């Protein structure tokens, strides 16, 4: 409850001018046009030395302004600051901090540039840098695109170094000595005569000193925290039930709510009858919403029972009503003019003029994010302000959307971002927060925690798009002479932007992400994207377009290798032009003993995908047993450029592989009469302990830039598995989920 008290206390400080006696820096000038948001809420004796460091008598708090949704980002980001500030990680608190443009994600837009990550030429780099300017102007605080670590790598170390510099200067002033006679260790300044002053005692003085614009950073050879496997700052809380997710937040006088939205997504609520629900135990209020209805009750379960008892008449969905009809729309897109053709090397049409040697059609379905913690948020409208507790990947957008609903200025909205029980892209949306705000508006003065049931969560997602692909290839001398790949899908980016009132200016590069930009030297090589209209709402799903294109591209490459009579791994190696990419493939070959004799019925598949700048190679071994396909083992090699926390990187790669395998084996969202058919984990399951393979991970550092690793491990998992099944059984499966075509061991 300590954290709640902190929240409440800060709440009281906000706007009550309680900063009298507190300490306010004029500006944090290090390359940010935005004011330090921590300055608004400082109390007596508190100082915010940079937007990332707050110090009060109780200790040091590091603001890690990216969503901690399982990927360990709080530990890694805090370590960047702690390294330069010279404090031990166990001696600091780590918080998400307030929603603020000051925490804009500088590199989030880089993935959208039409240059392959392997292209580091001046022009490509120039365009990437220009996206930093756009990101700054938009000021979007967002977690996604595996960008947190590259975004923070320099700026959060600089923040730590700047804070340390002013603390040192403060100590020098206090002791009347020169700064260069002082050293720091473990959150304490130590003078030549042995005098020790903790940072906490220097903070107020330090806050009056202008921080250096561009402080010098430690030589990586001197790193004490970075480059090492650190205990995660959230681990003890998560293993003792004391970590606080938004679903756990409790405020005095709180009531509990849930929603039921039109299962035909985006359809209206035509009428409803809540007479029965109103009479049910614990029910406090029925709240009609646009397209649905909420119930507020004295506990969540009463609310969930009551909402089921409301009779609703729903309007129709504004999209084709069945999966078959939607796939037909996607298929039709191939006949339209293309959305993108970022890769068109050689003369593909010429090389394929007398027909293809191998060709195929592929398909993947919609997928739900299914975060372990169902969507929920706390909203409290009081004293002309709106307070929110929510797990969000997009805090500034959540505040903006909530303010609009409550008819408030964004300054009157305070968001406390909590730990998240999974995000995977789903928590970049604001819909679940908006439902809580609507409930709070219906009961001003009362804090409301609104929780979506698992059924509501599964049936009202913004899904990973469905997609289709076709390829044709010509073979010469045991290698592809020509490879032509076309992908058709609705645009997730278009759907996402439309929900925040924006439109997509050009092609959607995510439709062909991780297909057009792979470092294979194929003489005639073309990748074309076709854009189908947005139908059911869609969004980014862990690894975005790479989640389907890894499967399309790498299954096709495997088909080509088999048609060419080549070893699938050796053929890829011969085609890869990019050194770090070759190195991960070589590493995974060694780790797995690729080429070794296998027992009867066993098969191995390999896949290589470069996404978010990270080359990843994976090998999966399966056995075809009487009880179905069993995954025996997976090996992965990844290159992140600089590995800040190897044990955490290993966890992320294992996680991404299991997430990708779950989708590959059994993940499928289907529609019938406009309604999503899957509702809970019985029909939208994921792999469990008995199916989960052992996964060996090797981390390489040959890449030229530091990269994030939350997503890149995912795209090769599905094709490596499908390719292994082909090797073991001779069955080539071109549609996900694979369990529609072959039985799996459970």
């Amino acid at each position, binding site marked *: 409850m300590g954290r709640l008290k902190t929240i409440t206390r800060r709440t009281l400080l906000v706007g009550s001018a309680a900063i009298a006696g507190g300490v306010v820096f004029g500006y944090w000038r290090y390359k940010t046009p935005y004011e330090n948001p921590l300055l608004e809420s400082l109390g007596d004796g508190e100082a915010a030395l940079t937007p990332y460091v707050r110090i009060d008598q109780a200790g040091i708090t590091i603001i890690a302004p990216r969503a901690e949704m399982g990927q360990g980002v709080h530990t890694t980001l805090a370590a960047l600051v702690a390294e330069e500030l010279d404090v031990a990680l166990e001696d600091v608190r780590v918080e998400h901090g307030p929603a603020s443009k000051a925490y804009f994600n500088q590199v989030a837009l880089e993935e959208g540039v039409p240059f392959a990550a392997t292209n580091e030429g001046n022009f490509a780099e120039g365009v990437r840098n220009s996206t930093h300017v756009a990101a700054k102007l938009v000021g979007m605080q967002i977690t996604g695109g595996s960008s947190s670590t590259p975004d923070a790598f320099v700026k959060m170390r600089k923040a730590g170094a700047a804070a340390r510099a002013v603390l040192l200067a403060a100590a020098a002033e206090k002791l009347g000595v020169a700064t260069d006679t002082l050293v720091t260790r473990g959150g304490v300044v130590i003078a030549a005569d042995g005098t020790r002053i903790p940072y906490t005692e220097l903070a107020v003085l330090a806050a009056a000193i202008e921080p250096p614009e561009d402080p010098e950073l430690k030589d990586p050879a001197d790193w004490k925290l970075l480059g090492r496997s650190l205990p995660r700052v959230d681990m003890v809380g998560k293993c*003792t039930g004391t970590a606080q997710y938004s679903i756990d937040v409790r405020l005095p006088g709180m009531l509990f709510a849930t929603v039921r939205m039109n299962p035909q997504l985006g359809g209206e609520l035509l009428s409803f009858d809540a007479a029965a629900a109103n009479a049910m135990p614990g029910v406090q209020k029925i709240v009609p919403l646009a397209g649905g209805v909420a119930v507020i009750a004295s*506990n969540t379960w009463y609310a969930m029972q009551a909402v089921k008892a409301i009779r609703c008449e729903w309007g129709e969905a504004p999209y084709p009503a069945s999966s078959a009809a939607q796939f037909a729309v996607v298929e039709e897109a191939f006949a339209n003019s293309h959305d993108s053709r970022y890769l068109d090397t050689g003369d593909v049409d010429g090389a394929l003029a007398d027909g293809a040697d191998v060709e195929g059609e592929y398909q993947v379905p919609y997928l739900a994010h299914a975060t*372990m*913690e169902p969507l929920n948020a706390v909203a409290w409208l009081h004293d002309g302000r709106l307070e929110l507790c929510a797990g969000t990947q997009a805090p500034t957008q959540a505040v903006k959307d909530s303010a609009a609903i409550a008819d408030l200025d964004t300054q009157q909205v305070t968001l406390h971002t909590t730990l998240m029980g999974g995000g995977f892209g789903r928590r970049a949306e604001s819909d679940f927060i908006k439902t809580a705000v609507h409930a709070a508006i219906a009961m001003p003065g009362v804090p409301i925690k609104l929780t979506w*049931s698992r059924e509501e969560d599964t049936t009202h997602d913004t899904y990973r798009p469905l997609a289709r692909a076709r390829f044709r290839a010509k073979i010469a001398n045991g290698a592809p002479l020509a490879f032509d790949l076309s992908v058709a899908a609705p645009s997730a980016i278009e759907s996402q932007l439309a929900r925040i009132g924006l439109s997509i200016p050009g092609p959607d590069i995510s439709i062909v992400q991780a297909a057009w930009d792979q470092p294979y030297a194929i003489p005639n090589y073309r990748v074309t994207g076709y854009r189908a209209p947005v139908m059911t709402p869609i969004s980014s799903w862990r690894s975005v377009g790479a989640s389907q294109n890894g499967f399309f591209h790498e299954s096709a490459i495997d088909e080509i290798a088999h048609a060419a009579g080549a070893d699938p791994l050796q053929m890829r190696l011969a085609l890869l032009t990019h050194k770090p990419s070759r190195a991960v493939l070589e590493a995974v070959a060694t780790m797995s003993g690729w080429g070794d004799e296998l027992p009867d019925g066993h098969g191995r598949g390999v896949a290589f995908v470069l996404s978010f700048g990270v080359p990843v190679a994976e090998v999966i071994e399966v056995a075809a047993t009487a009880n179905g396909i069993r995954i025996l083992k997976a090996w992965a090699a990844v290159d992140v450029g600089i590995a800040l926390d190897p044990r955490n990187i290993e966890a992320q790669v294992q996680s991404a592989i299991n997430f990708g395998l779950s989708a590959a084996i059994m993940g499928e969202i289907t529609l019938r009469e406009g309604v999503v058919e899957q509702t*809970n*984990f019985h029909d939208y399951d994921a792999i469990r*302990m008995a199916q989960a393979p052992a996964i060996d991970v090797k981390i390489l550092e040959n890449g030229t830039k530091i990269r994030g690793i939350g997503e890149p491990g995912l795209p090769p998992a599905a094709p490596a598995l499908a390719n292994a099944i082909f090797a073991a059984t001779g069955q080539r499966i071109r549609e996900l989920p694979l369990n529609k075509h072959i039985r799996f061991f459970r």
Partner: protein
Amino acid sequence: MKLTINGTEHEVNVTDDIPLLWVLRDELGITGPKYGCGIALCGACTVHIDGAPVRSCTLPAAAVWGEVTTIEGLGTPSALHAVQRAWIEHQVAQCGYCQSGQIMSAAALLANNPDPSDADIDTAMSGNLCRCGAYPRIRAAVKAAATSLRET
């Protein structure tokens, strides 16, 4: 109705059909057990009743037959249970949302079976879903906890 939870008796005024999970979470503010699915499919809500693992989301509070132990009663940050210590040692948790349930299932397994095989672990733990896919480390931590419990 009266419930004994983590050694403390509580009196709650609720309907007979409300599941234990919601009494714990909303009526008593004991939030270690999590809501994941509500229909005994994910294990996030696992607690012990007289030492046996139970999905609290489908058990009516009125039908509770013994003493309830939640993750908070298993061990605390300053007095960890051997399973929690193994979990921390192996840095198991990612988002962590499933981990209260995973740990309660593992603790119940090891109380009955001090030396579980891989197949025993599969059986005991497959009712606990982890969307973050932390399974390799869960397995390693169960084995480490088994070893440390056998040694004490």
